[in-house]
């Protein structure tokens, strides 16, 4: 096969399985780190990896207008691009309460996040995304270095426009990984969007054995 790979739509089930496995190991690393930090037992579901059309992207989070929390890291190294970790507000609230050791009933879902809570969310996003990247790096041999994270709490459509635009340069689809974890009866569902720069697709695909 030649190197003219130009979108995730060329993926078959095997490639999805590889990405799922990377997501699984990455999330596993992340949850272990989170469990140590909290000193609690945290369970995780097998991540779901999907290729979505733009029109379907905002639907996974309900309405494009709904407020969500996005933590983004730039990626440098053999592969460049960015990775986005996304949570809806109630999941973010549950996560903050988990981190701060607070009762879920103590805060309404729509309460604003304090500065320290925003910082805690940013750090959690950082741990999760970095763990995902280190799994990718270990499995593929691609060297990647994440930047410091940045956080945005805004409309789902607005935050998702960042990965959607990058994917939009290539085609009509995006790659999305859903991670679900729980502590006791608190469930948190988060989404990862891995966004390689155009020049880095070849690197990633070659490492995954899609093209060679």
């Amino acid at each position, binding site marked *: 096969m030649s190197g003219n790979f130009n979108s995730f739509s060329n993926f078959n089930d095997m490639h999805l399985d590889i990405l799922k496995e990377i997501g699984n190991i990455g999330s596993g690393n992340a949850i272990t780190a989170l469990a140590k930090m909290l000193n609690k037992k945290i369970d995780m579901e097998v991540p779901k990896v999907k290729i979505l059309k733009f029109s379907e992207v*905002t639907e996974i989070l309900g309405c494009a*207008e709904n407020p969500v929390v*996005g933590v983004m890291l730039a990626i440098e190294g053999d592969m460049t691009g960015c990775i986005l970790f996304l949570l809806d507000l109630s999941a973010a609230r549950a996560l903050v309460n988990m981190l701060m050791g607070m009762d879920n009933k103590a805060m309404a879902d729509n309460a604003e996040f304090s500065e320290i809570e925003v910082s805690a969310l940013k750090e959690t996003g950082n741990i999760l995304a970095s763990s995902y990247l280190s799994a990718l790096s270990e499995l593929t041999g691609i060297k990647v270095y994440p930047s410091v994270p940045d956080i*945005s709490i*805004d409309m789902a459509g*607005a*935050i998702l426009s*960042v990965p959607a*635009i990058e994917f939009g340069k290539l085609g009509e689809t995006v790659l999305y990984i859903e991670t679900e974890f729980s502590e006791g009866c608190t469930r948190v569902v988060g989404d990862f969007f891995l966004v390689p720069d155009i020049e880095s697709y070849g690197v990633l695909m070659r490492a995954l054995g899609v093209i060679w």
Partner: protein
Amino acid sequence: MQNILRVGMADLKCVEYPGILTTLGLGSCVGIALFDTQRKVIGLAHIMLPSSSQARSIENPAKFADTAIINLLEDMERNGARLRNIVAKLAGGAQMFAFSKLSSILNVGERNVASAKEKLNELNIPIISEDTGGNYGRTIEFYSNDGSLLIKTIGHGVKKI
């Protein structure tokens, strides 16, 4: 309750009076709103990228500022609009995350706005107002009765331009 038509990401639509068009959660994307002041035909495009000339494929012309404007004008003219009556308003083009290194990804909002302006100028369509830039998302509603554009945000207020 009036019928409000929703324009998706990389999508465009046009309606006649008394229709209303909306698009939700504009980030770095830009909402290009065109209004025929005489015939009250409105058109709205939600574009993602500045120019079709740098794209590898143009499956969807509504994705790019330049091709979306042309397609939207054609749709509006089919619905009775005349180019000489048309004015434009712009919203969106924000930078949602602040990284200095990833400039190509992050200044896309700014480039989207610049490209939309360039195409509108080329067609001699006056841009009568805009609410662009910043680091926050916008939902917009476009009214055919007076061509007003309502902009809603989270934490940055509501305004009409």
